[in-house]
């Protein structure tokens, strides 16, 4: 197995799926010769030509609307939106069409669309380049939404998303593009959507996250271990569908304590849903109030205050200690 960065894993997934399935096409701003601003599509236009790797005019709403039409007529478009905040421009076609076409046509037209976009902070970017927008999408029936935290999952989830047949919002933590490295099988494989992964076993507290903050959780868990608190760390990977195998509830039944971590603003974030489910499925196992560590309910700060917003291992460890000491 080769060691790849997350961006290489994403590139490889698209390349291999495009080789395997001629109906897969790629479209977006600067995705062709430029290979995308983060180089996720590097080399793909050279390999598959301008007809399958399409440089679009600068119009996000149109990129998604075009994808809807393409999907209706038998293509499997992978749309790249250059930065997370610009996906808002395409909200209409995502929510009103991509998410509803299967329903509206009584199953006649599937919508095999993958919308890839960088997400989350950590790169000291300008406004709109660092958002965590998963709640908008998980709140929309008909859309799926995933966010990998490592190269292996990135490739497997992307392959599964391309083949899924439903519109999938594929959120890529920008700060992990080059910093996250790991072993990735050469061949094609799927990481199924909706299945969370226990990345570390433990008996005293369950720590849940996904995407960028997974690293803070793993670091905090290592520090907690030094203090005798053994955490079970779970990577949700897929936010919609969410934890279909009930890994979270199973873990809480074991540990009795829960900390949910996400970078998105707090109100109605993924943590709210996780806690509600634990309340429904594992209430009697709880030994302490559930805790959440999240971004604040503010506009994502400009560079200088970014570190005060993004949850880090200090913030996660504090929550672990509080819940363990309850």
């Amino acid at each position: 197995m080769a060691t790849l960065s997350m961006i290489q894993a994403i590139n490889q997934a698209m390349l291999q799926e495009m080789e395997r399935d001629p109906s897969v096409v790629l479209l977006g701003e600067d995705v062709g010769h430029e290979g995308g601003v983060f180089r996720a599509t590097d080399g793909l236009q050279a390999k598959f030509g301008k007809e399958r790797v399409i440089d679009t005019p600068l119009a996000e709403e149109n990129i998604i609307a075009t994808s809807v039409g393409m999907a209706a007529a038998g293509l499997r478009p992978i749309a790249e939106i250059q930065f997370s905040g610009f996906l808002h421009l395409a909200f209409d076609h995502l929510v009103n069409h991509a998410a509803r076409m299967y329903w509206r046509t009584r199953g006649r037209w599937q919508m095999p669309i993958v919308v890839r976009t960088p997400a989350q902070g950590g790169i000291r970017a300008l406004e709109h380049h660092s958002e965590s927008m998963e709640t908008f999408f998980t709140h929309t029936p008909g859309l799926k939404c995933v966010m990998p935290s490592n190269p292996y999952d990135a490739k497997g989830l992307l392959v599964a998303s391309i083949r899924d047949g439903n519109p999938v919002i594929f959120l890529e933590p920008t700060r992990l593009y080059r910093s996250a490295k790991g072993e990735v099988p050469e061949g094609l494989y799927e990481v199924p959507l909706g299945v969370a992964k226990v990345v570390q076993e433990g008996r005293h507290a369950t720590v849940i996250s996904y995407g960028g903050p997974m690293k803070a959780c793993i670091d905090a868990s290592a520090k907690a271990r030094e203090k005798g608190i053994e955490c079970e760390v779970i990577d949700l990977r897929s936010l919609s569908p969410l934890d279909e195998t009930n890994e979270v509830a199973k873990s809480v039944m074991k540990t009795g304590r829960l900390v949910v971590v996400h970078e998105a603003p707090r109100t109605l974030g993924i943590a709210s849903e996780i806690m509600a489910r634990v309340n429904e499925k594992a209430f009697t196992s709880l030994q302490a109030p559930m805790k959440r560590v999240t971004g604040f309910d503010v506009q994502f700060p400009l560079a200088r205050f970014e570190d005060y917003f993004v949850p880090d291992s200090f913030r996660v460890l504090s929550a672990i200690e509080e819940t363990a000491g309850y």
Partner: protein
Amino acid sequence: MPVTKIFSGETYRIQVLDESGNADPQLEPRLSNELLERMYRTMSLCRVFDRKAIALQRQGRMYTYAPVEGQEAVQVPAAMAIGPADYSFPSYREAAFYIARGAPLNKLFEYFMGWEAGQEAPKESRDAGVSIPVGSQTAHAPGAAYAVKLRKGKELAITFFGDGASSQGDFHEALNFAAIYSLPAIFLCSNNQYAISTPRKIQTASASIAQKALAYGMDGIQVDGMDPLAVHLAVSEAAKKAREGKGPTLIEAICYRFGPHTTADDPNKYREPAEAQEWRKLDWPARFQKYLSAKGIWTPEYGQKISEDATKEIEAAVASAEQFRDDPLTMFDYVYNKPTGHTLEQRKELEDEIAKRKAAGLMR
């Protein structure tokens, strides 16, 4: 007759200064020496600002910046052809416009150094803050213009955007609304040939962006965007028309982005250096200097003095911006016009956390 012609239109381009800086006698706007000098001084200052900003970013002293070199002759003359009470809706590549409007240089640097406080402007300013979603600001101008019209004001609203932005729905919807209600609005497109790596021909199959105005029932004109006099002329006329209640104008200024898209971009990946050399022949400094020297304004010593003054002013602004510090708790100050209880709770949470980090010797 079953087949009749229902529309025909023409779109024009204007240029006042030729490539060697000679003014067209018919079009020359005969601006006062005071204004010409102010224009030249400001454009020169902007170029120094721009190069300094790139250098600071390269040295790790500043974050991402979108350079304006090659577009000063659009932004500065446009700013000088409108009034202080007019509304403006610029994009992220409008440092020269903000400077010409009198924005404090240290604030601009603070913004690009990642301080939110860099977004502060005087209360009476009618310039919108930097708009990054491409094309979105174009659709705000008609709203402001409508408000002016409703209160029978004489101000106008101007918006700046790029060739790439002309592909966005917002741009088309904005022209449409402004034309239908004959609003006092000016749409100033800086067609710098690229949207990051994407050349203009992938934005539109039209021969120009200016001609799009015709389909919306409004005026459109193309100007040489490296010719400050042409831009000043076009914007002045559009402004006069707007104030007389004669509706909006689309102006396409042809220019070139000499620098990278932003400091995070490498233009060599998608364009030949020879292309920039061709455009450099049209760059405004030599042409404008020639014109000003024929007017008895510019001499090499005069030019030297202006660039020295500019450098001093920029250095002072950088020094001030680099001194700037702010409290992270201010991130809660502008979420709503009055903080909600919820906001205040989270503010307290961060305050306590910072104290805890300090106590643990872990302050970031």
